[in-house]
């Protein structure tokens, strides 16, 4: 496989000449207890081939039966994406040979998807909204998974033999396909990322999938083509398969725009093909050519009766839809009193749930935002993890934030001590109280010591003291700072200010 870097045009340069057209296909593994067409469990990470039966192994004679729960999930996804739900639709067979696929055809939906013609509004960083039109959401089954053994790369070339794990074969998937997205221009990479992020939040809120991109339960294929500016003719597209993180979605779009532009500007033409995304190097490489010769010989699956959800069933499912994430966000922003910027930061950092839980646990919205988006976010970013996963791994919980805020409110810690205590929590030294105890963090409550320090500082800075006596109260900050230094930070700044102003006749 070639990983040689191809020429890429600069992003701005590319967009000066071309308009990108994107289409995204997102595969979502449904979180049903059992597989799409049999009763086998779907738990992740089980011993290979322990979750199989004649049906999902495609043994001769075995027949599929549709998982009603999966159909319900697919309908709820369709409804949440503002789609129409088909009153009658069928599964089809997609025939092709693939070692991971027991029947050598995939049971999928072709021209009769369960949900079609919807949209999802996506909010961008600048606060504007882009409407992504949804072409369809259809049901299908996942394939098994090959493991190539004996080679150094884990790829089939050089391997002495291959093993196949069919535990994943037959796990229900919903594939959500957008219509071509036009007019996003330079914001195309951002739109792609925001769409996948919004979709992920929506699917999570629906509780239909754990949407873990890193475990492959949500995967994105990026279709991209370029149109010369002013043209209305779509260019040849490439399909970058299995892009596995939000950041990669953005990067893959950006990379393919640059690559297409370089090829087209050089007088070349784009080959219609699938491409592989390389997370490490941030490039795509050529995969299988995709042409009209790809003939899946689709036909209606004769082993399954049509899916015909009753209108009442669909309406009953509509009633189970959660508050749409966008509405929920607006509601929470109002409740919490966050500025637009603060809210966007929280959203972009994926902190909404964590902040909500923390507020529910008793913290103020300000404290919840402050502690989750500060040092821990910085550390998580360095580790290349999202805050939620990172916090989970460290065992840091909303209760810790509540406790920390309590220590500040009770006057035991000032702001800088609280920061030290939080760092201790992140370093695994225990709860905020335990850290404060261990590190001896405690505001000095002894007014005698404080008064002595104030007197010493006033004596040492007669000119500043005079200014304050003359009414320049804002100069008090300099003296407070010195008092704090004198007290090694363990003083209550508010109390110090009160005493200084008293002494200088400004109270």
């Amino acid at each position, binding site marked *: 496989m070639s990983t040689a870097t191809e020429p890429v045009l600069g992003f701005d340069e590319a967009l000066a000449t071309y308009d990108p057209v994107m289409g995204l296909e997102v595969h979502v593994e449904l979180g049903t207890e059992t597989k799409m067409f049999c009763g086998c469990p779907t738990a992740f990470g089980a011993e290979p081939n322990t979750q199989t039966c*004649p049906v999902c192994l495609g043994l001769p004679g075995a027949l599929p039966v549709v998982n009603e729960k999966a159909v319900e999930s697919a309908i709820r996804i369709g409804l949440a994406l503002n789609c129409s739900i088909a009153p009658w639709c069928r599964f089809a067979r997609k*025939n092709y040979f693939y070692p991971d696929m027991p029947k050598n055809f995939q049971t999928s939906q072709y021209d009769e998807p369960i949900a079609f013609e919807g949209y999802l509004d996506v909010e961008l960083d600048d606060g504007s909204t882009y409407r992504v039109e949804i072409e369809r959401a259809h049901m299908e089954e996942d394939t098994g998974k090959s493991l190539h053994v004996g080679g150094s790369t884990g790829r089939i070339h050089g391997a002495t033999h291959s093993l196949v794990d069919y535990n994943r074969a037959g796990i229900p998937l919903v594939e959500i396909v957008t219509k071509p997205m036009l007019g996003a221009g330079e914001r195309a990479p951002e739109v792609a990322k925001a769409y996948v992020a919004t979709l992920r939040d929506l699917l999570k809120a629906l509780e239909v999938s754990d949407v873990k991109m890193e475990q492959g339960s949500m995967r994105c294929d990026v279709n991209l083509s370029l149109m010369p500016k002013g043209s209305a003719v779509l260019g040849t597209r490439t399909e970058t398969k299995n892009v596995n993180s939000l950041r990669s979605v953005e990067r893959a779009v950006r990379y393919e725009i640059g690559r297409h532009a370089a090829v087209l500007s050089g007088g070349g033409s784009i080959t219609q093909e699938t491409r592989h995304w390389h997370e490490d190097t941030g490039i795509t490489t050529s995969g299988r050519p995709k042409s009209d010769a790809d003939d899946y010989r689709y036909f209606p699956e004769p082993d399954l009766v049509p899916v015909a959800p009753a209108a009442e069933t669909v309406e009953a499912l509509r009633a189970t839809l959660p508050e749409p994430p966008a509405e929920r966000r607006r509601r929470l922003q109002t409740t919490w009193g966050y500025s637009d910027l603060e809210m966007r930061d929280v959203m972009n950092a994926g902190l909404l749930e964590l902040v909500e839980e923390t507020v529910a646990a008793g913290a103020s919205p300000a404290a919840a935002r402050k502690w989750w988006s500060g040092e821990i976010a910085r550390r998580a970013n360095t580790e290349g993890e999202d805050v939620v996963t990172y916090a989970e791994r460290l065992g840091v919980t909303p209760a810790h934030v509540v406790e920390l805020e309590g220590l500040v409110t009770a006057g035991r810690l000032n702001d800088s001590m609280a920061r030290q205590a939080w760092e201790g929590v992140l370093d695994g030294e225990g709860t905020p109280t335990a850290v404060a105890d261990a590190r001896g963090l405690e505001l000095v409550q002894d007014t005698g010591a404080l008064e002595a320090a104030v007197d010493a500082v006033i004596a040492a800075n007669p000119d500043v003291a005079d200014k304050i006596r003359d009414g320049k109260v804002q100069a008090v900050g300099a003296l407070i700072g010195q008092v704090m230094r004198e007290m090694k930070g363990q003083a209550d700044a508010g109390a110090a200010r009160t005493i200084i102003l008293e002494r200088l006749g400004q109270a």
Partner: protein
Amino acid sequence: MTTDLTRATAAELADLLGAGTVSSREVTQALLDRTAAVDGAVHSYLHVDGEGALGQATEVDRRRAAGESLHHLAGVPVAVKDVLATRGLPTTCGSRILEGWVPPYDATLVTRLREAGMPILGKTNMDEFAMGSSTEHSAFGPSHNPWDLDRIPGGSGGGSSSVVASFQAPLAIGTDTGGSIRQPAAVTGTVGAKPTYGGVSRYGLVALASSLDQAGPCSRTVLDSALLHAVIAGHDPMDSTSIDAPVPAVVEAARRADVSGMRIGIVKELTGEGFQPGVQARFEEAVQHLVDGGAEVVEVSCPSFTYALAAYYLILPSEASSNLAKFDAMRYGLRVSPEGVDAPSAEQVMAATRDAGFGDEVKRRIILGTYALSSGYYDAYYGSAQKVRRLIANDFAAAFERADVLVSPTAPTTAFRLGDKLDDPMAMYLNDIATIPANLAGIPGLSVPSGLADEDGLPAGFQVLAPAMADDRLYAVGAALEARLTAAWGGPLLDRAPDLTEVAR
């Protein structure tokens, strides 16, 4: 009692077993002995499971002796077509590609046979993956017609028809995709029924064409088929196309054997021209017997039947090409490495295995089906065939407005000679011309013997068709006809067949 147990019907055996006159072990042993004597000549079986059958028989005898309440047919042995998955017993579908494959599970209908306490004698021969009308396409050699060993026993279920006709089993399970139960029944002088599509679970039936396949009973009498039908029919949650409704009262209908007041429709397109004179003559006599029994005859026309064969030979290969894709040498069955290739790729192994493992007829249909489904041809072929299928269903619906059942000869000819049509697929396909429309429409059909054709002295079949879920009507008509014909012949037709023990030496 001196009854020859191999010649007793299933109903008679059930009575003898119930009365304690004989044991299931005696019956099973008698049938296995008969197999030892004649199957060398007939080749009905691909696998005989004497030990397993005797074990099941012994168990039933024990339970009966213990006073347990058993199914009516408990202890009556049955043979099963080798296209049905049987746990622990080889299942080859008559193909080299599955040689040696032992399924880890039972087909639902096999489970029902076991639950009824019916010993399974073995797996019967068939055209490879049920593709054929003569059983000559079996990779393990043809079966022979007990009436004339040089002739075909029908297909694809020639093993199931000949095992019953040669008294090796009172009952057998067949599968009927375009007539593979009814046509073999016709040419061997036995009874065979294709239930309504979805009436018997397809779970565990290795699919030829999923939308057409239907398992059903083979026997020597109409009542026996009804009894077996009742055991295997009924809803199965493992088969989404299985009908979730009560099974029609087939046994009661067979016992009543009454056609008085019934309107019998003769399908114009399925009689006369193209049918062997002797077959046509027996058909007309049979109709007269039904009229004598109080039925009224009407003529009906089903013009779309002209296209049935063409539509069938597009739909069947299309579905088969997809159903057979799983035989790729990777997980079970045959695996052949291509000659002269070091470290062959998966594709090369697959190609070599399929080349060696599939016979010509299977390859022919895979190629046909792949072509018919390919983009650009789909609408012209598969799409058009589906439209014809709807027209045929409409023709049936209109015909059933005028008649309670429809009748025709089952097959246009008596059994042809082995090898006669092997090189002429179209001639072979034409043998199913009268049976195919029922599969396309999903309606039930039954074949009962109508006598021997004058020109060759071989059995001819009489086909009865009924609307979907009216399977009971088939048995009423079939049993009425059988009663009158048996009386006219002075005994069962099969008594006139040669005694194979002499032929087999």
